[in-house]
Structure formats: C-alpha cells, structure tokens
C-alpha cells in the first residue's frame, strides 16, 4: 500500500470542490500583500487539473507531470509556477512507479522544497509556502500510513501558519510592506492549509 495516482485524482477533485470559496478568501488576503491573483490561480489551476484527473496515467511520476502541465496553464501568479515546479520535482523522482510507499513522502516533499528554493529564490524563514512544506516534511518523517500522514500534515500546516503570523514577509511583493506584514497570514501558507483541510 502506498501513494498512487488514485490519491492524486482524489486530492485534485476534493480540493476543486472547495476551490471557489478558497479562491475568494485567498484573493482577499493576496490583495493586501501581493497582486491579488492567488485565488484566481488556485481556481483556474484546480479546474484545469480536475478536467484531466480521470485521464491521469497510473505511473505516478507521469501523473504528476500531467498535473504540473495543467496547473501551469494559468499564467499570472508565481504560485502556479511554484506548484508546477514541486509537481515536476516529484515527477522526476517517481517516474515509472505506480505505488510510492508513504514513508517516502517526507523525502519527496524535501525534493520539492529544494526545487522551489533553487528556482524561486526564497529561503526557509521567509514566510512562504516553503515554511509550511518544511513543517509538513518534518511532521511526516517516519510516518507510513495515509491517515496519520494527513492528520500530521494538517496540524503542521496550521502550526506553521500561526508561528509565522507574527513574523514579517521577507520575499516577493509582500516584502515591500516589511513589518506591516507582522500579524498578517501569508496567503500562500493559508492556501496550503486550506488545501490539506479539503482532503
């Protein structure tokens, strides 16, 4: 038993079902800090992915690659590109495999974080989705069951959101607002939490 393309299909559909409400909230948060298009990116991206969910191949790597293509078809927010980069990083590691042991999830998240840091230029501690994912990566280490992986991930994403709330954004457009971002939630970090909660 492990992570398969079926899980990916399920996750895409589950998130897409809630994405309109999620999108409104994220647009509102992003309008204060960024260019206000995070919600739009999420809505379009998940609608695109849902449209191809049934056709995703069983090869998990190839399925991630097709999902990355669909996600990145919405230009605009860097969030779409970063999701594409993470999916691609995972695709490269899992090409040719149908079932990924849950115990490998932590390492795969680590690969995605590395790829996003290399391409996007952010570091851990900048108050971005990387900090959420790093918390999730740590929480999932040595977990090997889907239910514990999911509950630990939701908890980690929520903890990360709260622990960074009182720190300033240090990269991207939000950085310009500096200390004014103290007390505000990073829209990308909220997106991660909301996506996991939808599962």
């Amino acid at each position, binding site marked *: 038993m492990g992570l398969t393309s079926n899980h990916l299909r399920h996750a895409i559909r589950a998130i897409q079902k809630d994405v309109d409400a999620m999108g409104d909230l994220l647009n509102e948060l992003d309008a204060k800090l960024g260019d206000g298009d995070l919600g739009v990116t999420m809505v379009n991206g998940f609608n695109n992915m849902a449209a191809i969910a049934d056709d995703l191949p069983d090869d998990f790597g190839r399925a991630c690659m097709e999902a990355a293509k669909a996600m*990145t*078809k919405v230009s605009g927010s860097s969030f779409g590109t970063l999701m594409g980069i993470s999916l691609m990083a995972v695709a490269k590691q899992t090409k040719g495999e149908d079932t990924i042991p849950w115990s490998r999830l932590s390492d795969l998240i680590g690969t995605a974080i590395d790829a996003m840091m290399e391409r996007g230029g952010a570091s851990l501690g900048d108050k971005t989705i990387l900090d959420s994912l790093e918390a999730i990566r740590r929480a999932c280490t040595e977990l090997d069951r889907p239910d514990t992986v999911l509950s630990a991930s939701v908890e980690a994403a929520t903890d990360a959101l709260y622990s960074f709330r009182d720190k300033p954004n240090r990269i991207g457009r939000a950085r310009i607002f500096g200390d004014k971002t103290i007390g505000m939630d990073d829209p990308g970090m909220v997106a991660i939490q909301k996506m996991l909660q939808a599962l």
Partner: protein
Amino acid sequence: MKKLMNEAVNYVDEVLDGLQLAHPDVFKVDGETGRMLRKTTPSTGRVAVVSGGGFGHLPIFAGYVGDGLLDACAVGDVFASPDMNPMLEAITHADDGNGVVCVVGNYGGDKMNFAMACEMAEMEDITAQQVIVSDDVASASADKAEKRRGVAGLVYVVKIAGAAAAEGRDLAAVVAATQKAADSCRSIGVALGSCVVPQAGKPTFEIADDEMEIGMGIHGEPGVSRTKLMPADALVAELMDHVLPELELKTGDKVSMLVNGLGATPNEELYILFRAAQSILKGKGIDLVQPLVGNYATSMEMAGASITVMKLDDDLQKLLAAPATNPFWKG
C-alpha cells in the same frame, strides 16, 4: 492610449494571426495553447533552436522564426513570460531527435518556465538546454553580470544559434557557439518616451519632453541615469563608454554592431547614432563587420535606441554571415 487595435485581450493573438496570414510560407501558429509560433515547413535531421518570452518586442522573439534562425518560439502576453506549456510545445515540436537549444533572456519568469519545460522535455527523452542571454550592461555591474537583463543581444544570439544548427553541428557544438555569442555581446539602451502595454492602457513610465533615460530596460526598467537631451554624438560617446570596456577590444579586433530602434524612433536617427558609433570604433582601430541598423528588438512604441556590440572571432563572423530567410531578418 493611442493604438491601432481591437480588444486589448486579443492583442497578441491577432498579431500572431496576422503574421501567419501575411507570411504563410514562414510562420504557423500552432499548439494547444495557440501561443507557439513555428516554421511552416519544419527542418529535420539537425539540432533545433527555440526561444520564447514576453510579447511586444517584434521582431524579437517570435518574429525570428525562420530558416537559419528559430525553429519555434513560445509567446507570452505583452511584457509577460509565457507559461511553461507553449515552451514545452515549442521544444517537442522542434525536436527531431538531435536535441534543442533554448535561447532565453535573463528574466525570472522566462528562465523558471524554460527550466521547467526542459525538465518536462527530458521526461519525454528530449534533450533541451538553455543558453541565458544577459547583455544589458546598465542593469547590473560586471561583478553581478548574472543579474543583467537580456536585451537586443538576443538578436545576435538567435542568429548564431540558428546558423550553427543549420550547419548541422551537434548539440554540444551548437550550445557552445550560442553561449560564446551570448558571452560576446554587450548592450545599452536609451529611452526618450514611454511605451504603453495594451492591457494597462497608460504609459509604463513618465519622462519629461526634454529628458532621456540612459540604460532603461526594454520593459521600462529603471536605467543608470536620467539626463537632459543631449546631441547624438555626445550620447553615443557615453553609451559606448558603457558597452566597450568589458569587451576588452584591441586594435584589429573584429566586432559587429547593432544600432537598434526601440519602436518609435525613426531610422534616420538610428543612422545618426550609427555614424557616431562607427567613428568611435574606427578611432580605436576596431574592425566593424556586418553592422545592423534598424528595429530588431523593440518595446512597443517606446522612443529611443540601443547599441549592441558583439566581439567576433572567425567562427562567429561566419555564422553571422550565414544565410537566413525571414521577413524581419536583415543581415
């Protein structure tokens, strides 16, 4: 905003359609995205060359699809990188099993999306390699050259890459020639008036009637200095002072030079600039080969010009002179 256009949202697609209708033997709009322009008759049995970037700079990027130039090109919105999908379409369409060189301007979105497209291509067993062009000396100092933007030097790099591929060189050799071209170019621009992005509807920047900005980027990025208008000869002397030192030219060295219009400046004025720049090169005993004067890399209706100097060795000189067929290329 005064533009000859229909709905702003259709701006790019209508230009692409116009290109393929006007030159059906050269250009074909293709791909699921409709944002991939390719040669009507693909080349086979050799390395392919692709590029891509934001729109609004014709002839660069998409305008240089043609024999001896680009095989295919990904097209973004005005001044905005295409997403990864048309880039991947350009790569997979152009590849004939011999690999693909991607000529990419040094902009965050373009680089990130092309890197992703190259990785995706790799998963389809296509080898695609990026060559990054960062020729604008005004955008960062020499010790931070990796931060410099890609501007009109892209024209030379596309030409060299296309010629090396057309000659039948293998992927490593085409990449090497393309990289050498990128390393041998230095550019700087000067802006006199702003451009207008159709969907923005208002000027990208403000500049007074009697001012010019030296070193401004092709999307209106801030330059090195804003000054009162000066005579062309004095301006060119200043521009060449920025461009030439890093090339470390010696008497007898060969260069090509592109005096490029940014969109709204007449050819007449480009030749006034060329005259002055040519005289500076001559005074230094530098051999000017195959000069280019005209609109090659524009910024919509921005008024102004840029000067690019490319240091040549025998191979680059030969590749620059190689035939290329395209409605825009004037060698």
